[in-house]
């Protein structure tokens, strides 16, 4: 248990109750975790790790965190904390999980390492798994589909950003039995450049990456696995990189067996999300912002979902939009940690975003 962070960020709040560390703190999602935890009333930050930036101040990498009085430490030197967040590339957590669990009672992993349920899935979609024995224990972080299992969870797997967007858009249709699971579903995704993480190659340099609509995952592979695992249906997934930094937008084209009305759809989405603190349904209406779009949720933990009926083609188009850095990773991870520890679930995640905003 640690004392409060002395810089008065959470004025009026009681002393933080839990200590936390971030492995991979120099990366993009790691930086978001640091930002959220630094302002979170119930967490006190102990360590942020980086190999390449060790000893440097947090602000050296994340200019928005210049006020933080902390330096990166090597990931080998983990101190004991209450919660450890791992924001490392795929494959790292499964190798280092023993060290992580030794350092912390609760481990929240942002990579794909503990999302799927069985070794067979990792054999099919990835290069196998180093610790299949733990797959049973881990809980998927997305509260909108797994709220019930989070309290007390000690190994939590934060969802993939594209999968999160698709699942949030489609799930109400399954719950309401508008879809049964054997329909063909096209998931056409558009994502920003932060999805690639901090270490990009040629394709992510500004001159090559700006102004694009670029197919980067023409057929889906791994993203499909996660959607299938949680919706129980296979999907036809395609992702495009577009010119924004944050944001993932999924457009799902679905063809229900039986005709549905707009009222049915509103009912399905209301049933699914009316009580969810971070979900909004946006479907038509006036003004500039009529359907979900990443700009409207940029910087926030909110997810927007919406739909339009296409009676001529007997199609429903479902739109969903999230910030891949927040609802799609760091925000989802903290949301799940809040629930695991029994805290107010919105703690540290209240920011509602900006207007106007460019390409955040």
């Amino acid at each position, binding site marked *: 248990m640690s004392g409060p962070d002395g810089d008065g960020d959470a004025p009026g709040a009681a002393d933080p109750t839990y200590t936390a560390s971030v492995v991979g703190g120099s990366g993009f999602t790691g930086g978001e975790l640091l930002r959220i935890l630094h302002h979170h009333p119930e967490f006190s930050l102990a360590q942020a790790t980086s190999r390449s930036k060790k000893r440097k101040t947090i602000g050296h990498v994340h200019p928005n965190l210049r006020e933080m009085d902390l330096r990166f430490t090597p990931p080998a030197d983990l101190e004991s904390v209450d919660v450890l967040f791992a924001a490392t*590339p*795929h494959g790292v957590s499964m190798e280092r999980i023993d060290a992580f669990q030794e350092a912390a009672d609760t481990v929240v992993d942002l990579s*794909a390492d503990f999302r799927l349920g069985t070794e067979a899935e990792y054999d099919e979609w990835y290069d196998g798994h180093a610790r299949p024995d733990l797959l049973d224990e881990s809980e998927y972080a997305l509260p909108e589909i797994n709220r019930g299992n989070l309290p007390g969870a000690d190994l939590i797997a934060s969802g*993939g*950003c*594209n999968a999160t967007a698709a699942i949030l858009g489609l799930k109400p249709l399954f719950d309401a039995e508008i879809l049964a699971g054997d329909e063909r579903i096209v998931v056409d995704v558009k994502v920003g450049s932060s*999805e*690639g*993480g901090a270490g990009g190659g040629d394709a992510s340099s500004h001159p090559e990456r700006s102004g694009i609509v670029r197919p*980067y*995952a023409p057929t889906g592979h*791994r*993203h499909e696995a996660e959607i299938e695992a949680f919706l129980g249906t296979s999907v036809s997934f395609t992702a495009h*990189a577009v010119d924004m930094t944050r944001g993932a937008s999924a457009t799902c084209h679905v063809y229900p067996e039986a005709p549905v009305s707009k009222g049915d759809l509103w009912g399905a989405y209301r049933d699914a999300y009316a009580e969810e603190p971070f979900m909004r349904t946006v479907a038509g209406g006036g003004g500039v912002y009529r359907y979900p779009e990443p700009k409207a949720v940029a910087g926030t933990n909110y997810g927007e979902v919406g739909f339009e009926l296409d009676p001529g083609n007997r199609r429903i188009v479902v739109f969903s939009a999230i910030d891949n850095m927040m609802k799609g990773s760091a925000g989802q991870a903290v949301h799940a940690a809040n629930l695991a520890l029994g805290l107010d679930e919105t703690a540290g995640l209240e920011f509602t975003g900006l207007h106007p905003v460019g390409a955040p």
Partner: protein
Amino acid sequence: MADMITTEDPLTGEEIEIPADVEAGEIVDSPATGAELEVISVDPVTLEEAPELEEDWGE
């Protein structure tokens, strides 16, 4: 320009020109399709589609 030879693009069946001195295992791009082709053998030259670069964009 280095000497070129004519061979068949395995994806399209088209005649394409590639450098004459390619080595087995080398990756050349097809002028017909831009696709990356692996040189399977050199005498005669046979090509097949190169295994896809598994590029993980960090998901």
